[in-house]
């Protein structure tokens, strides 16, 4: 058969389409299960079975061959994927998700490239095939390289602080986008030189690198979720090219969900998605943050001891734990649970206040606390817990910084002004567990620490919490 590759895919027999229909229905049903923790496990498994059905249906396509290669690819992928997924620590989950996301985008870009090679530059193919393929190549390549950088930052192979070309960044990114788009248009118009496609992929790759490199660690939840949406969209574009309903629907489901999630994250930080992608904190660059951070506070901080903290909490009626990325770094979630157990034994109400962007990915804190067997019911979202702080005797902040900074409510000069925060300063007393007085990722001083009712407990979060627990037990 010497017909171009594209021609045979249009003739999907109905059985395969119906299997795809079943598969995507299972994806949707599975995602619906994620609305509650009780149904979520089953939901995910339903989606996984749907995926298996989709793969088997694809095997049924008329004219499938190269079985040895397919088997080899599946086996190698499984051998790499299974141990990675099994062994990754819960604290390392954000970078693992970034990596899995990246390879998905990479696969899309590679497929588009292989198509280009095999069809001698999409020669003689309809634009309805060529344009989605090129879109898939660009978005997939951005997603792959962007995810790799996100992985590097989260894994701390790369510095978490923004790296960028300053004012040259925007023109550079725009130029790269124009190069990728220009080369793509050339191909669509009939260009078939091998280097044109390479140019598309490389320009998009550099764009992915340069978009994610300048983004600070604190904005990572937004970036990961944005890249997730990108991979979904690239899959949908690939689906249009291949006229494959499963790819279209599944890809678009992810594209839509990733977009919503990205917007939610950005709202939670009071930032627009473009300003985050534009890089740096506060849009205006480091100058603003520096001005606010530089010793504006001559106030004193009060430090406390584990014993005093334990006594303070022992006489409380309600204690609210405010976890942040510091808790994840210190791997303190189990110690925190033990402390909460000790408090509950004394009849004290314990709740957890979870800021939507605490940690390095959406919902990161919930995963860690769930790992430590904290009951789902005690995990409170921001809107739910904020009303509780005035009734809270002790708020204990563990490795969270910017999300508790009252400047977001009171200081219009602050780069984080307007960002919804946890109103920890409304609690009757605040204990902050912190390694040192260093500022957070945003590089801003936290007024909460200078509040007279705040006491600082310096040291490693895990050690401090364990000490408080043993002091509580000894009381």
């Amino acid at each position: 058969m010497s017909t171009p590759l594209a021609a045979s895919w249009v003739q999907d027999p109905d059985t395969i389409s119906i299997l795809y229909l079943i598969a995507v229905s299972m994806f949707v049903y599975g995602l619906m299960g994620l609305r509650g923790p009780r149904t979520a496990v089953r939901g995910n498994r339903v989606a996984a079975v749907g995926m298996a059905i989709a793969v088997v249906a694809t095997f049924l396509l008329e004219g499938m061959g190269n079985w040895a290669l397919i088997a080899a690819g599946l086996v190698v992928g499984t051998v790499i994927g299974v141990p990675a997924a099994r062994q990754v620590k819960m604290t390392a989950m954000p970078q693992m998700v970034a990596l899995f996301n990246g390879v998905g985008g990479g696969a899309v870009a590679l497929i588009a490239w292989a198509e280009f090679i095999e069809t001698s530059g999409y020669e003689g193919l309809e634009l309805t095939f060529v344009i989605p393929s090129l879109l898939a190549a660009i978005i997939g390549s951005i997603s792959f390289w962007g995810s790799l950088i996100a992985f590097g930052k989260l894994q701390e192979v790369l510095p978490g602080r923004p790296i960028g070309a300053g004012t040259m960044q925007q023109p550079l990114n725009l130029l790269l986008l124009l190069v990728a788009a220009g080369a793509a248009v050339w191909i669509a118009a009939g260009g078939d030189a091998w280097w044109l496609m390479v140019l598309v992929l490389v320009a998009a790759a550099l764009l992915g690198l340069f978009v994610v490199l300048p983004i600070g660690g604190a904005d990572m939840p937004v970036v990961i979720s944005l890249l997730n949406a990108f991979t979904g969209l690239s899959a949908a574009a690939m689906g249009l090219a291949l006229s494959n309903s499963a790819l279209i629907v599944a890809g678009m489901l992810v594209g839509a969900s990733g977009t919503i999630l990205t917007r939610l994250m950005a709202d939670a930080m009071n930032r627009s998605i473009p300003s985050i992608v534009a890089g740096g904190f506060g849009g205006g660059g480091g100058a603003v943050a520096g001005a606010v951070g530089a010793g504006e506070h001559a106030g004193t901080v009060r430090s406390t001891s584990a014993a005093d903290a334990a006594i303070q909490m022992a006489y409380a009626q309600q204690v609210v734990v405010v976890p942040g990325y510091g808790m994840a770094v210190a791997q303190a979630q189990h110690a925190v649970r033990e402390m909460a157990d000790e408090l509950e034994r004394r009849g004290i109400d314990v709740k957890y206040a979870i800021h939507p962007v605490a940690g390095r990915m959406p919902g990161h804190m919930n995963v860690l606390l769930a790992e430590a067997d904290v009951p789902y019911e005690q995990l409170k979202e921001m809107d739910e817990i904020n009303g509780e702080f005035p009734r809270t005797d002790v708020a204990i902040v563990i490795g969270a910084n910017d999300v508790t900074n009252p400047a977001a409510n009171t200081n219009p000069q602050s780069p984080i002004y307007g960002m919804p925060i946890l109103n920890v300063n409304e609690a009757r007393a605040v204990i902050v567990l912190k390694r040192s007085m260093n500022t957070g990722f945003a590089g801003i001083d936290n007024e909460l620490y200078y509040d007279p009712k705040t006491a600082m407990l310096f040291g490693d979060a895990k050690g401090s919490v364990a000490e408080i627990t043993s002091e509580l037990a000894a009381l």
Partner: protein
Amino acid sequence: MPLAVLDFGVSPFVANLTLLVVAAFLGYVVISKVPNTLHTPLMSGTNAIHGIVLLGGLIVLGLGEDLGALATVILLIAVVFGTINVIGGFLVTDRMLEMFKSRPKPAGDNTEDAR
């Protein structure tokens, strides 16, 4: 030909585009109802679902005849990547969700309302 009206003669591309747009709205509706607390599993779950790109790799590799060496290698890597995405994505999500237990059973079994 009374049934002629039923045959709109829609091109596959337009039909696919329809599917795409409807799927976008469907995704929007389904996902808006997921609580904040489950956002990490949601992301990693959707992450696994876009592993559907594996199908693209399988189709192009499986239906390709006389593939050149470069294209074969590229497609093989694509299939490996797609498989990692699917298998890793679902496993990691499963591990995370297993941890979301509700210890003290709330009244009734409607945990959705508990948030």
